[in-house]
């Protein structure tokens, strides 16, 4: 089975704030990490390989710096790492990212299963997975919490929904995005770390993928960020303290004053 896992390198903290006087982002010594959800995708790729055989290739699009993310993935035991990097790719929105990732996946070969994270913690969109699946012309399932079986080219999958989960059977090839419930990622092994250091990382450029500069990066992106700003600062409300009886009595009387019933009217 050919398994491709797409990982994104993201700033290691979302604790990014905006300086209220200058209205600019303040970044405090953030280092780059693998998007947390993508670690579950890597782990699921390894588990599928252990169950059904095959090869796991990780793929990351980004500046040359993503090499460190790819080496980390190698240390967990994936077979190959491919870096998709070219200045022309910079500034890509989810559509341009999908165009690029799909071209890279096709370049690597015909995948049976493509795994991605549910969303990246910097952009928080979750759109790259479904969008890439369309570009590849394969089916996709988001929010997958379990891959039950893959037999005779048919995967049986559990997908989370707001009010429960659905069990779905679908023929490969397939792209899925995973939630963290799907597994518990393994730590890097000593052997893996050694291999990760030496392994060669293949790099794919715009030319390798046969894409035009207009279809990728900033120019290939229909959306544009016109403004960034901080969310309005909360002010905080009334806090009661002292012994529990008095504090709770004060809270309830305050709620009553505000006309709030602390109880579902239709309740028991």
């Amino acid at each position, binding site marked *: 089975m050919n398994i491709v896992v797409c990982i994104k390198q993201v700033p290691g903290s*979302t604790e990014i704030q905006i300086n209220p006087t200058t209205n600019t982002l303040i970044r405090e010594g953030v280092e780059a990490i693998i998007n947390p959800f993508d670690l579950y995708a890597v782990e699921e790729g390894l588990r599928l390989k252990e169950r059904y055989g095959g090869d796991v290739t990780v793929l990351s699009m980004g500046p040359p710096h993503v090499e460190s993310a790819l080496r980390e993935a190698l240390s967990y035991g994936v077979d190959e790492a491919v870096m998709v990097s070219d200045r022309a790719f910079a500034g890509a929105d989810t559509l341009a990212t999908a165009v690029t990732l799909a071209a890279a996946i096709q370049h690597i070969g015909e995948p049976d299963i493509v795994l991605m994270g549910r969303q990246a*913690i910097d952009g928080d969109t979750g759109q790259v997975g479904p969008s890439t699946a369309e570009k590849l012309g394969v089916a996709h399932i988001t929010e997958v919490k379990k891959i039950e079986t893959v037999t005779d080219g048919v995967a049986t999958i559990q997908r989370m*929904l707001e009010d429960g989960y659905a069990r779905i*059977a679908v023929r490969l090839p397939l792209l899925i995005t995973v939630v963290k419930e799907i597994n518990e990622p393994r730590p890097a092994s000593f052997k893996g770390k050694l291999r990760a250091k030496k392994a060669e990382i293949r790099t794919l450029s715009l030319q390798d993928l046969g894409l035009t500069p207009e279809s990728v990066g900033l120019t290939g992106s*229909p959306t*544009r960020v016109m403004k*960034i700003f901080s969310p309005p600062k*909360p002010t905080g409300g009334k806090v009661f303290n002292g012994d529990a009886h008095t504090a709770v009595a004060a*809270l309830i009387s305050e709620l009553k004053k505000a006309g709030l019933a602390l109880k579902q009217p239709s309740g028991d």
Partner: protein
Amino acid sequence: MEGITVLVDKCVGCKLCIKTCPYDAIDLVDKKAVINDRCTLCGACVEACHAYGAIVIEGWEPVQTGDLSIYTGIAVYVEHRHGKLVPIVPEIIGAALELKEQLEGQVKEQSGGDTPVAALLIGSGGSGLAQELIEYGVDEVWLVDHPDIHELAEDTISDVAVQIISEKKPAIVLGGGTVIGRSLLPSIASRLRTGLTADCTELTIDAESGLLRQTRPAFGGNIMATILCENSRPQMATVRHKVMNPAPRRPGREGTVVTFDVPVQPSRFEMLEFVAEEASAVNLADAEFIVSGGRGLGEPANFRYVEELAKALGGAVGASRAAVDAGWIQYSHQVGQTGRTVKPQIYVACGISGAIQHQVGMKSADVIIAINNDPDAPIFSIAHYGVQGDLFEVIPELVRQLKETA
């Protein structure tokens, strides 16, 4: 770095851009900013440098998808499950109606000045929902009612939606920020080769250009971004749950149902079974009263404190990620960035510090009440009311006094 330029004579070496860059992509060389190859052209530095104007990004000239003025009106994708509209549908229609008003207020730019709001209703037996949609205020229902379209057959639905959107050419398409919406809309946008903004919390029309301004949180809610889709159509967005004002329902309202007879591709998915969450896990997203517990509970058995209060209020039980990660309660109860977004009338946070990732999931609750023994816990800065004290004393006391007042 291509595409981005530092105008050396304008750069004063103030380092504001360096502090701002989320990707560590700017260095100071000889007191001037130099962009390195980590740059993703995100534009944060351009904002940071607006006082000096020393950083510019060029080359943003995507191909136009032909004549944009032929795209008019607003279409809302209608998600329905178990034969009913999902709760977010009236909220999206509410947002669409507000946009319609804003667009029609700027008639000068528009040819006809008329901005119809349509509902895209695809499924089997969906026609029963058409009248309800009209009562919520849509002018037209674009209907495909076909026995083979399962509610979760997203590939088939996406295919049908693309055909109708291509034919009707709405200028704006909105969908819900639900599990299905956030899976289906990207596949539709990808096929139409247009932009899509995820999980918007504010949608307005730009007074000058008439474009849709799509505002959404990013970086776990730490920053907000306003996004435009200038050169392709339709402009597409998913809308965050429980943020927009739902359209009121007006029984008996009249509208048009347009039935489409388009080819329906068989789905690649075979639905085996739907497993509803067990009864105790009330659908958090729709609950009006929620009591959540965090690490402050100390151990799994202590969730009974939270459950007891939830029961007294007639509400649902939520949790912080710390409590879920510790294995005290199931993931389906998690509220926050990586859990559910909720907007109840009352949200009671017990033993939850109120990390930003938790806040993004619950801060739009009408009333937030925090119970925490640490006066400096960030939860108090967003709580409308707080009790600073030991939750093991406060919760039972609250339950007792609530019973007395009832």
